[in-house]
């Protein structure tokens, strides 16, 4: 059991619904690291957040012994390295497998998330295009699960256990479902993406994940409410 002193050594600045924060919480849980969670109000950011991430002023920020680490996938890799002696490797040992994992984590950040954000914020034609882009991107993941020698036939992208790519994508699970619900669209069709669907189901039920995954109902309500504020009402003129 960690002492209060030990807990103070690791702080996570975040918000419970943020998929990027969820990623870090999963990594901390899998490594068995105790930490103090500091819920940030994104409209009035704390001094600590502004000081710890002056460049982007965004969550998550991991503060370890007073030193801040920013950007969720950089934080996840930092957690792996700083606590490398703690059970469960999140990142493959082999340099090639590692490069493949990093590639797909980058794909999720640079392609999947922007298309999801497009669905979240989109209307009309823009929404339609974002849905198409998201489906295309998820189909690429489905194909990777089917044919990539690093992933095919395994329970997770990380093999028998959750790894970097699982965390990168899986952290977004409730966000994806909430956006689907709010826009009445299907981004991950179980018929077209059976492997991805099965993987997500398995991931969300896993130890270390289920405890930190946002409540899907709350997340869906939040996303719907945010979308409602984006739709501008028709003006009188």
């Amino acid at each position, binding site marked *: 059991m960690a002492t209060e002193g030990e807990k103070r050594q690791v702080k996570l600045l975040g918000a419970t619904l943020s998929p990027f924060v969820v990623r870090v919480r999963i990594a901390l849980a899998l490594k068995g690291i105790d930490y103090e969670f500091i819920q940030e109000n994104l409209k009035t950011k704390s001094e600590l957040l502004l000081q710890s991430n002056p*460049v982007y002023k965004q969550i998550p920020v991991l503060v370890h012994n007073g030193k801040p*680490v920013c*950007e969720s996938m950089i934080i996840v890799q*930092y957690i792996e390295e700083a606590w490398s002696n703690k059970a469960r490797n999140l990142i493959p040992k082999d340099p090639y497998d*590692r*490069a493949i994992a*990093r590639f797909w984590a980058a794909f999720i950040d640079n392609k999947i998330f922007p298309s999801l954000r497009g669905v979240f914020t989109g209307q009309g034609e823009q929404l339609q295009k974002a849905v198409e882009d998201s489906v295309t991107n998820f189909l690429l993941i489905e194909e990777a699960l089917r044919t990539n020698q690093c992933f095919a036939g395994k329970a997770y992208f990380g093999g028998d256990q959750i790894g970097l790519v699982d965390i990168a994508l899986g952290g977004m699970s409730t966000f994806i479902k909430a956006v689907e619900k709010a826009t009445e669209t299907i981004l991950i069709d179980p018929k077209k993406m059976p492997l991805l669907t099965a993987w997500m189901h398995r991931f969300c039920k896993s130890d270390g994940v289920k405890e930190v995954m946002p409540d899907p109902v709350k997340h869906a309500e939040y996303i719907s409410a945010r979308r409602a504020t984006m739709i501008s009402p028709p003006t009188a003129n």
Partner: protein
Amino acid sequence: MGEGEEQVKVLSQWPSPFAIRVLIGLEEKNVRYESLEENFASKTELLVQMNPIHRKVPVLIHNGKPICESLIILQYIDEVWPGSNSFMPSNPYDRALAKFWADFIDTKFLGTGIHGILKKTGEAQEEGKRYMLEYLGLLEGVLKEFSAGGSKPYFGGEQFGFLDIAFICHTCWFEAMETLGKWKIPWESEFPRLLEWMKKCRERESVHKIFPDPHKILEYAIKFREGYLRSN
């Protein structure tokens, strides 16, 4: 090529800062490689096969297996050929910082700064210049910290490392950006450490060998800009 000999190829394009990055990395590690120039008009079958998702250079092909995304390739090179010169800092925290700033360079500095000048006109281009100056200011500060106030030459301290290689590849485009933007970056007055750092890096054999002729970059940049503005 004999049995058991390592085969290293790079799918490359001479003006691409990302390709330049990978070639500098291989040179620094003294790895023998073959560079295959992709043309701009159409992608080769090999590129499409090796990088089906993005279809972009650079791709490192190591004994037939492709590795994509230049920063990921740099880390791979460092891990496969550790040698005596590690690109990555030795402790996890410094590694996280190096990755953070490399990512900043590729997204903010390149995306809003360099591309703001290369791809925009009028007020939008002026904004690109402002961003570039702001970001150079940030990086000047980072260099001051990482070089222990200038007592060490590089972002990697004594070592020409990951962040140095990640950034130096973009600097060969700076003169072209000044010409296209019809301005001069105030290096001596505002960014003297970066100026000194660039001079030091250019003296390295790897950088000297790989850096394209700045006149050729300018020619390429002008053509690129004309083509881009026509179709956007």
